[in-house]
Each structure stands twice: as structure tokens, then as C-alpha cells.
């Protein structure tokens, strides 16, 4: 996850009256990083690359993470259960490579 400075680029001064946004200020005051809790995790024999998906193929964050830009606070549940079938469905639809070695090596 990006560090606090990235958040502060926009949220240095409060943009809303949200209590969630205040939390960012609190962390900044205490000079601590936000202790994110990971909700999307794959087992260790699955190698996923954000670079390939988000940067090279320019797939939007919303495609896999839901309506992330519009939320008022960080999600506590994964938007979708990312099973192998779920990934392979999209690979099939977009004609991306579905070989075993693509993700499992």
C-alpha cells in the first residue's frame, strides 16, 4: 500500500467534514503509517502482477475492486471473492493468456 505521504498529497488539508478523513490527520500528527489490514490475498502459489493488469493493460481499479473511488471509507470486506475461476473468466473474455504457468510460476 502507498505510504501516508501519498494520501497527504490531497488530504493534507481536510476536504470534507468526514470523521474518516480526520483519521488521516491523526496518523499524520503521530507521524505513523496507517496499519492497513489486508483483505485481498492469494495463496503463495499464485503470482499476481498489478503492473501487468493496472499499468500495462490499463484495467481500471473498479473492475476488480468495485466502486473504490466513490466510497466514503476504506472497505472492510473484499468486493468479490477472487477465485481462480473468477480470474480465468475475465482472461477468457479478454483473450488474455490462460496457461497455468502464467499465474502459477
Amino acid at each position: 500500500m502507498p505510504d501516508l505521504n501519498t494520501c497527504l498529497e490531497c488530504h493534507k488539508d481536510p476536504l470534507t467534514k468526514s470523521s474518516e478523513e480526520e483519521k488521516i490527520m491523526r496518523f499524520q500528527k503521530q507521524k505513523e503509517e496507517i496499519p492497513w489490514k489486508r483483505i485481498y490475498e492469494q495463496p503463495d502459489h499464485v503470482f499476481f502482477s498489478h503492473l501487468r493488469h493496472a499499468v500495462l493493460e490499463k484495467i481500471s481499479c473498479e473492475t476488480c475492486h468495485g466502486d473504490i473511488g466513490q466510497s466514503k471509507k476504506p472497505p472492510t470486506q473484499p468486493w468479490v471473492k477472487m477465485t481462480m475461476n473468477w480470474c480465468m473468466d475475465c482472461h477468457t473474455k479478454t483473450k488474455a493468456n490462460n496457461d497455468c504457468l502464467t499465474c502459477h510460476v
Partner: protein
Amino acid sequence: MKFNRRDFLKMGGGAGVAIAVGGGFWKWSQFPPIEKPNSPGAEKWVPTICGQCMGGCGTLVRVIDGWAVNVAGNPLHPVNRGTLCPKGIAGLQGLYDPDRIRTPLKRIGKRGEGKWQPISWEEGLQIATTSLKELKKNGETHKLVVLGGKDRGLMRSLWERFLEAFGSPNYIDEHFDWEGSPIEGFYLTQGLHATPAYDFENTQYILSFGSDLLESFWSPVQVLKAYGHFRRGRAGQRGKLVQIEPRLSISGIKADEWIPIQPGTEGILALGVAHMIVKEGLYHKEFISRHTFGFENWTDGQGRSHLGFKEFVLAEYEPHLVSKQTGVPVDTIIRLAREFALNQPSLAIGYRDRPFHQMAVAALNGLTGNIETSGGVLTPKTIPYQPLPSLRKDAIAQRGHAQKRIDEERTLPVHQPYLFAKNTLSGKPYKPKVLFLYDTNPLFSNPDPDLFLKTFSEIPLIVSFSPTLNDSAQFSDLILPDHTPLERWQDVPLFLNNGFPVLGIRQPVIQPLYQTRATGDVLIGLSRSLGGEIEKAFPWKDFKEVMIHGLKGVFDAKRGDIFGLQFDEAWTRLLQKGGWWAPSYKSFEEFWKSLQEKGGWWDPIYDFGEWDRIFKTPSKKFEFYAQTLKGIQPVPAPASRDETSLFPHWEETKKPGNEKDYPFHLHVFKTLSVGVGENANQPWLQEIFGLHLFERWNTWAEINPQTGKELGISDGEMVWVESPHGKLKVKARLYKGTMPRVINIPLGLGHRSGGRWTAGLGENPNRLLAGDEMDPLTKYPIRGTTRVKVYKVT
């Protein structure tokens, strides 16, 4: 079956790969079309062990109405824990191969013509028995030679027993190079003729000298799972992998660093790294002083002083010299040495190169003290089989055993198929008369297959036990077809990366499809027909009974347990350490029953520090100076360097090849899917043969794009690749992962026979390799020295 697939899934394992059983399936199968294709059938899941390669993964085969229809991983089997590689499910295609041999066959017409007559088992066994009786009558029992393949376990013991009772010393492991772990390196440093375990899951840094780690390792699923754990399974730690190889393989692609190197020079690079580790004092001083021999200079019993490895490697393998030979920059050599020594624990692994090069890689692990430690090189215990009862050799057999082996002149305790070939051709010490081929295909999988073709022509009777009409079976006279792995009983002993011994139980999942017979049963049958002491040596009804006999030893060993869930491992370990042993069975009957239900037995404890067990060298320590060789025939070496030839050292090829006429090095490699070619009859595996280039059903030659431009060869064009030994017409592929002066060709295709999906497809790069320059120790042909030229097909 008391439990079904749902129960396995509830246990939290079980990766399933579903296949569509539809119209296409019926077309190429031999099933009669069923009347009511949609009515539900009786379903059961049978645990067994996959037989597609040496990996030994546990599988669950789904059987509906007596037909095997799906293969999934067995979540209880420690090797794969419910996962599988594509070869696993392709086993079904091996089972249902429409061109499988269905009955014993007798050759009519000339050898290799492909004309066969189906005969009965009675007739087939009769032919074999008659020829064996003839040998006995003439006192020539030693002229029976058995070439056995990737054998381990009781089938191997049974073959050796048969030969012992019959009177022939000639069991030859035709377990070729490409399928091997670097066992010679292990033998020279630790004195054990076995395969080492590499604790990948717990190591921090893997320095791979050309090892095919992520592609065609001997146990692919196990190593891929270990790789996942190595990279992502330990919070906060991500292991580093450096791949040193002449080609950008899958391991190279996934490595943190790929270091291109001149083909065949990995050994000298290892010595260059060793030099730097010694020079900078980065070696593990305590391990070296307590557990190794030959590092420092020493004086022997006669008062003569000897050079130690330390001074030797400092004097001979300076980075500049090594860089010149290998093409690897000096800075890289220095950096690798520091990284390897400072990131502990680390592992240096390689491939089955020439013995002293393997020893050089093994020496790196010795230098850093990564022997017998977590994350290092471990020595698995063997399975405690009950030994087969001693047998009496009759007078004829005793005479037979007094004869020399056909591959006499051995230096290492490794069998030497090339010597067998040469000696057969020369007739010295004698010419074999009967050859049995079991699980081996020398006419395809050996470099210089024509040498073996000529050898075969010298032998009057050749009997093959192959289930498919592969290249070697095609040249035999009699085929007594074995079952495929899904149809037979077998014990599958192996081990895990962390050294735990594992015994898988392979059982038939369906009734045999055709009139094939398990070779174990055939051997027992042959012994009956031969009678006398030979018959007495086989007091079992069939191979299953042999297995049960062997398993009693495992039961009596009072350690380990039937496969269980992963957390049970920790509990069993605690109990055993405390002197308790609480297995999940009480009687042998219960044991045997559970073995069949769960898939096998294992011993989930590794006792570190059993130095007596793991070092069987003359010094009882890890040796940098291979004293084990001193007991065997002297190694030919230049007189002045007699001493240093027992250190790991660089052996330059004596026949460097004609660089002018043959400007490229040939690098041959193995893929995961087709291996050495034994799985070429399975369409699913042919489909994934060359993933990185999307090549399938075809052999290709990888050429560097710049080189291709220079030669005027475009991507996809047909070219000739010619060595002094032969030439092949293959498809050229311009691949950036190719070094400019190297051509890479995969093994696996180019069979001359074997069925509709194998014969005549692709080309066999073994035909380009010569069998004439042999390593003096192993008598195997030296790889990596073949040179080729490439030109367009006009």
C-alpha cells in the same frame, strides 16, 4: 470408499480440474457408445500415484461406472497436497491412447518395419522362456541384459532379484542424464549413491547453475509449491533466485537475475565463485573445520603433504580466468560470491553435468556450511522396506555371476549404458544374446541414438515391456506390454524437499483396458516357467504380494504414519521426538487398508546432525578432495596434476569442435509437459509444449533475433540445424532469450513411432549429439560441446 470428494474438499484441499466429457471424448476413445449417455453412473474416487514423471504426486482418480474420467490431486499426499500439474490429468490420455499396445506382439517382417502379429500371453511367455532356457543350457546366462528405466522401489528390486537368480550381473540403469539430479556431485562430496533433498522452502538464496528448477525438475509440483513458499509464503521474507544458464528458460524468466553463460561452463563459474568466497574469507569456518576434509593442506599417514582445496581454488580459478571462459563479468562473479555467502541459508544447485562440475556446485554448499541444515542440502532416509528373502543361486547362475558385467571398466558405481553399447559392438567381453527393455527408450532419449540402434542389431532377441510402440519397442522382436500407471500396483518411494521420506501407493483405478499385464507379474510368471531355484526365489503370487511383503518392513519400523492432514505432521513429530509413536493403525491389516485409502505412508521427521549417516566418505566428512575415487580405478589425469584431479575442477573438453564451420553452440533442454518424450502421445501435453513461444506439436530452434537478421532467417522459417553428427529440419523461432552464438532446441518430439500423435512429429535433437566424447568417470557423452551450423531450407 468411505469418503468422497466432498469430504476431501471440506478438509480444505483438493484443486480439481474438470474436463468436459462430451462428444469429442467418445470419438477418439475406444469406449463403446453408451445408450443412455445422461443417466448418472456409480462414482468413486480412487487414490493413486501419478505415473507421468518421477514427481510422484498423489492423485485422486474419479471413476464412473468403471471408467476413469478425471484426475485431481490428493490433498493428503505430502508431495503435492491436492495440487497437480498438467501432466497429471493428461495421464488419462496416456491410459486411453488409441494406439496403445493391447496384446503381446511378435515381430513379423524385419526389425523396425512395424509389422506385428498379436499373440497370446502363453505364446509370448513361451518365446521368452525358451530363449532364457537356451541361455541356461549353454551356460550363457550372463548374456541376458536388462536395460531398466526410471526405477526405484520394489520393481527395481524384483528385476535385480530375477537377474540374480537367473545368473546375470547385467542390470543396467538406463536412467539417462536428462532425468537426473546431480547425484555424482553428492556422491563425490558425501559418499552416498542417492539423491539429495534441497530444502527450498526454508532457504533465502538460490544460486542455480543451469538447473531446470521451475520447468522440468524431477518433482515439478513439489518444487513449484516450494517456489511459491520461498517467494511469498514467509511474511517479510522473499527469497532471491539467480539463474545462470545459456538460455532464458522459465526459471530464468522468474529469477531475480538471469546470467547468460557459455554453454557447458557452469562448473568453472562455480569454481570462480568458490575462489571469491575463499579469498574474502566468507566461508563457514566452523562447519569446514568440524565436518569437512580436504579444505586445508594436510599431511597423510605416510608423512607426505597434500594440497588443500583452499589453496587450489585460490591458485587456479581467478575471476579473470573464469570470466574469460564463461563470458560472465568479473564484477558479477565477485558479487554473486558475496551474495551467496552473506544471504544465509543459501543453496547452490545445478544439473547433472560432468561429475567434477557437479562437485564444484556441491562444494559451494559445503563452503557456506549449508549441509544438513534448514534451507540447505539434506539427506533423506530410505523407506524401511522388509528385505526380500535371500535366495539360492543354482550352479548355472553362480557361473553367470562370475562373469564380468557387460559395462565393465566402471569407475563410479553408476551403470554405463554407453559402455554396454560399445562393448556389445566390439564383442568384448562378450556379446549379449537377450535384451530386455523395461521403462526405457534408448533409441530416442539417448544422445546419439544410432549408436544404440547399431547395438540392438547385434543382439538376437530383444523383448520390450513398453505399453506403447515407442522407438525402442519398434526395434524389438517381442513385446509383452505392461499396464499404464493407472492400471497397476506399484510402490512409489521418494522424499520431500525437507528430507522426509514418503512412500506412495499406486493402485489400479480401473480394470485393465486391454490384455496387458503388469511386468512384475510377468517376471514372477517367467520364474515359474524356468523352475528350480529361480522359481523358489519368487514365492509370491503377483507383484501386489511382493509389495505387501515389502510393506511389512514399513509397518515394523514403528515410525511415521499414513498420510494425514498437514497439522498432523507437527503432532506426529512431537510425539516421535518424545519417544512415543502413535500411528493411526494397530495391525498390519489396518495399515494396508489405510495405505490404500489415504494413498501412502511418510515419516515427517528429519533428524538433523546424524553425521555418521550422511557422510559415507572415507573421512566420514564432507569432502573437498574426493577420496571415494581413490578406491576405484585410477582416474586418468595428467601426471603432474594427479592430486588436484580429485578436487572439484574444470574439465575442458578435448574436442572443442570446429568453430569456423559450426559457429553455434547447441543447447538442448527439457520442457515440463513432454519431458524426455515419454508423454508425447498425449495431445493435451503436445498443446502446451512450448508455452513461451506458443509453439505446439512441433520442434523449434531458438535463434537470437540479431543473429537471425545476420543469417537472413525470419521468425517461423524452416531451417537446417547441422552438427558434425547429423542434421535436422526445424522451425526457426527468433527468441530474445537466446544468446547470440547459441541455438536452443527442446527435447521431446521426433519419435519415429509411438502412435498417431507422436510418430513423425517434430525432430529429436539427440540426433545432433555425438556419443564419442565420453566423460572418463561416468562414460556418458559430454553435453554442451556440440556445435552446429544453421542455414535456410532452400
